[in-house]
């Protein structure tokens, strides 16, 4: 076995070298501006460039230095030496996946990861953000809380997307800036999103880790007002999806909301003592709630009522 491995390794190395030469000749650079974040993605896997062109049509850029850089190429597993699609950020291996349908979701994930690592200007939270009028609704939550499906439901009612994954709070303005990446929809919500009339990229199905099968809804493929602009936080809602339960919207104090947001920050540690001050300032004029339930339309109705002041909450 040892002899076989020793004989095999040089062959693999030669194969890799040929592979890399072929891949290097075909490298494509995708330069995007996604809201306030500039991203460079170097792609050495056929077909992925076309997928990005479908996901973010018209969002290419020709100037500006990237805030986040990601590479994807064919390589090998470090453990089994099996062929993999490797995704790196600044030279660090972030993901290594087997199947082509896993590449795009992990690239999207890698871009987010690089934003966390490299973009120090913003206090970042794991949250979806949508805009109505001049105010942002921030929905912090862990995976599975329902924030993406809620985002889709509100976008179908005309709310504008600021972000599906990240709330970017600018400490200088206390406002949320846009980072409108494509919504990653899990298979359990495909039918719901299609019923909402949103443009689910139906021809493509992907796989993303524990989420399983996923598909995308991109604001870049929707009408020109689908994406929001920088605005202050007017509402903060902590969603928790509970299947079969009625939608309930319960007011909470701004302090409780701020504490929950701080817990869901990606980079509060880097801001140290400034973090709670920034969060407190961002929520200073916001109405804050917990939202539980499993009925999307009822949940969106309650949020719409609060936002349009039809429901007065102390």
């Amino acid at each position, binding site marked *: 076995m040892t002899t076989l491995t020793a004989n095999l390794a040089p062959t693999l190395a030669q194969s890799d070298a040929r592979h890399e030469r072929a891949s290097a000749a075909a490298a494509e650079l995708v330069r995007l501006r996604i809201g306030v974040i500039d991203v460079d993605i170097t792609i050495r896997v056929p077909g992925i460039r076309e997928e990005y062109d479908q996901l973010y049509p018209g969002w290419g850029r020709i100037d500006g230095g990237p805030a986040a850089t990601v590479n994807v190429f064919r390589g090998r597993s470090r453990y089994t030496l099996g062929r993999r699609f490797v995704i790196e950020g600044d030279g660090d291996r972030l993901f290594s996946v087997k199947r082509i349908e896993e590449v795009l979701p992990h690239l999207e994930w890698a871009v987010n990861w690089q934003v966390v690592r490299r973009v120090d200007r913003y206090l970042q939270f794991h949250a979806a953000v949508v805009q109505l009028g001049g105010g942002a609704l921030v929905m912090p939550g862990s995976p599975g809380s329902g924030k993406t499906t809620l985002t889709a439901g509100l976008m179908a009612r005309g709310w504008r997307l600021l972000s599906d994954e990240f709330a970017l709070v600018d400490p200088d303005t206390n406002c949320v800036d846009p980072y409108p990446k494509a919504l990653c929809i899990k298979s359990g919500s495909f039918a719901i999103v299609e019923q909402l009339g949103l443009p689910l990229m139906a021809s493509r199905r992907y796989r993303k880790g524990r989420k399983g099968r996923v598909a995308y809804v991109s604001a870049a493929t929707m009408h020109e007002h689908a994406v929001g602009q920088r605005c202050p936080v007017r509402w903060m809602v902590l969603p928790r999806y509970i299947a079969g339960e009625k939608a309930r919207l319960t007011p909470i*104090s*701004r302090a409780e909301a701020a504490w929950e947001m701080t817990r869901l920050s990606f980079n509060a540690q880097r801001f*140290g003592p400034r973090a709670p001050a920034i969060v407190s300032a961002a929520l200073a004029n916001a109405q804050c709630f917990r939202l539980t339930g499993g009925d999307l339309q009822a949940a969106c109705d309650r949020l719409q009522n609060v936002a349009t002041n039809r429901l007065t909450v102390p």
Partner: protein
Amino acid sequence: MSLSIDKPRRRTDLGVHPLDDEALVYDAARNATCRLNSTALFIWQRCDGTQTCDAIADELVRVWDAPLETVRADVRAAISQLHRHKLIELGPAKSP
């Protein structure tokens, strides 16, 4: 050494961020944030190393209009919690 919760003293090296009648308290040494609701904040602000727990409870009763013994028990429980979260310091217990 056992500690007495009789005259608790709040730490003065913490960042305090009021939000309405509550506050976020930031401990830079531990990079940890706590939320104090209005009652916890009321108690914590009176932990100046000179007031006893019972004195704090007496003041709280005047504000909240609740039975004294219940409030005294709640204040002691709150101070234990504040100490557990390292927001206050306790003095040494007096020897019998």
